[in-house]
């Protein structure tokens, strides 16, 4: 009689989750990132001030240039108000509401651009790794893209195609599509290289030979046998891709090539705040802190994910 196991063996994903939970940086990253996402998406339900609301007449004079509430701690004469805990800008718009709005745009741009770049990178990487004939040309293309001066080109392209897209999809929608496409088109190279390397290694394995011997088609071989095996590097580069995308978008907005001024993103808010830096240092600092915190948490998340998904490290 054989011993029956008491508990069912843990699945691969339970193992991954176990490792992930014990990575302090990763847990911190995941927590902060989820908190920020929740704050900017669910926050407006609690804090119902309209970020685009412009006070008129006397209200405008009363409400503009309010300092954040904590300034009252060291400066009793400062113009503060509990109605605007983080103050208002020079047009009297509420900073907290604008930060939430800007965060929604920044995070949405980051996620969409990341999806685009990972899809593109995975597609090109698989094609290059799987089909020998495509390998040379596609990898040359990747190298050429890596040699392009990306930031200047993004700047140029974002200005040249802005009008055409804005006419088609409206000023905000057009810019969103433009920026997401530009970031996606210029950041797929790392993913493609990693995926290609992994596919090349997998192609020589026995289970691929076995699958082929029972007549599996190429498409099925890729989707059923290859993709699940290269999922972990893709996940990691996807996480890190969010960080790059958010930074690039903020840099574009900061240089004035991003969204229009009345449509704030974190980068745009930072840029607007720089002009009156000496009297209102909180204006560039808050969006800056939020950008850095998002990127930091995503980087830690990616780090932890890499450790959790790597079976060689997982056991330790």
């Amino acid at each position, binding site marked *: 009689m054989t011993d029956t196991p008491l508990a069912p063996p843990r699945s691969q994903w339970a193992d991954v989750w176990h490792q992930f939970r014990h990575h302090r940086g990763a847990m911190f990253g995941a927590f902060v990132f989820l908190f920020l996402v929740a704050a900017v998406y669910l926050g407006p339900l609690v804090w119902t001030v309209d970020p685009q609301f412009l006070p008129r007449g006397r209200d405008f004079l009363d409400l503009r240039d309010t300092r954040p509430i904590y300034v009252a701690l060291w400066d009793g004469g400062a113009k503060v108000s509990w109605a605007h805990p983080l103050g208002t800008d020079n047009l009297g718009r509420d900073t907290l509401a604008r930060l939430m709005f800007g965060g929604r745009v920044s995070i949405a741009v980051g996620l969409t651009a990341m999806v685009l770049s990972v899809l593109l990178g995975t597609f090109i990487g698989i094609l290059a790794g799987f089909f020998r004939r495509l390998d040379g040309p596609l990898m040359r293309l990747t*190298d*050429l893209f890596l*040699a*392009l*001066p*990306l*930031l*200047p*080109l993004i*700047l*140029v*392209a974002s*200005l*040249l*195609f802005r*009008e*055409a897209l804005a006419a088609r999809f409206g000023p905000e929608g057009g810019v969103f599509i433009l920026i997401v496409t530009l970031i996606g088109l210029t950041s797929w190279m790392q993913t493609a290289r990693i995926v290609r390397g992994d596919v090349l290694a997998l192609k020589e394995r026995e289970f691929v030979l076995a699958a082929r011997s029972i007549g599996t088609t190429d498409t099925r071989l890729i989707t059923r046998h290859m993709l699940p095996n290269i999922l972990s590097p893709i996940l990691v580069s996807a996480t890190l891709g969010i*960080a790059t995308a958010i*930074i690039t978008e*903020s*840099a574009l907005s*900061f*240089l*004035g*090539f991003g969204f229009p001024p009345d449509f704030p993103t974190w*980068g745009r808010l*930072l*840029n607007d*705040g*720089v002009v009156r*830096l*000496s009297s209102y*240092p909180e204006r*560039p*600092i808050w969006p*800056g*802190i939020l*950008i*850095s915190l998002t*990127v*930091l948490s995503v*980087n*830690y998340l990616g780090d932890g994910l890499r450790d959790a998904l790597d079976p060689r490290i997982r056991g330790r």
Partner: protein
Amino acid sequence: MLTFAIRRLVLSVPTLLFIALVIFLLLNLAPNDPMAQVPLTIPPEVKQKMREALGIGEALPLQFWKWLVAMFWTEPKVLIDWLTADSLLLGWLPDTALYQGELRVISWQTRSPVMDIVVQRLPQTLWVVGTAYLLAIVIAVPIGIYSAYRQYSWFDQAGTFVSMIGFSIPPFFSGVLVIVIFSVQLGWFPSIYDTTLQVTDWDSFLRQINQMILPVMVLTLQITAQLSRFMRASMLDNLGQDYVRTARAKGLGEPNVVLVHVLRNSMIPVVTVIALGVPNIFGGAIITEQVFKVNGIGQLLITAIEANDLPMVQTLTFVFAVLIVLFNLIADLAYGMLDPRIRYD
């Protein structure tokens, strides 16, 4: 080594041509009109003539060819003339007169040759970026070595944390932050870089250093964060190898083992990363120049894009591309020099 170098050099030519083509097509296929800014009183047929004078109506391949000729044939001639006539280094050579008034790439903004403006602006960028890069290497390499040698010590943990923060804070925020702290609150350094400052004596030299500190600090933080991580990872890879145990078993001293045997092998990937990181730094310099109002080539690019000055944008983007390809080449050569296996593949 020579064949390796020549092969790499030859390979970079098609890359550059392709990049030039991409930039050219991107700029010329996009909808824009250099005559959009001229007064409406100018009759349409005159406008058409002006367009033709700028070479707009011509076939694309012809335009591209003319640009290539101006970039690769006319400009070097101007450069050689300048070198032999005015420069300190080669001014003793007999003056050459290679440039005979051929067409050069002219900026639409200033109507002067684009390369002249680029040459004026390049030193500012190179000063700031170069200083920051050298400083970052000097700081990052010892940090990387020490944190790998004492892995998981408090120094290593702190280093990991600081470098994580270093590459999470984008330069446009760290720039603003250091301005708030050092320029607004403490008043130690100026927040605006004065490019008209001539370094003539000790006093002006000190002022130059003073104004360079903030931009250099921002760039250095960013580069140090990346480099020290690479240095650490590469040292860790090598510290566990058999040859290190052999070296220790032979009775070599610890400094000798770490600083000679391990360091030399660990430098191979790090040198590549150093060379490959340069283009990134020029990207970061565009932003830093904007924050600190340095009028280098990054700032020139931004103003040229805003003014719709296509020849300037095209040339500047190409200059950035040349810098990237050049440093890739240097990385390849350094790799080949440090690691003999690469040369023969």
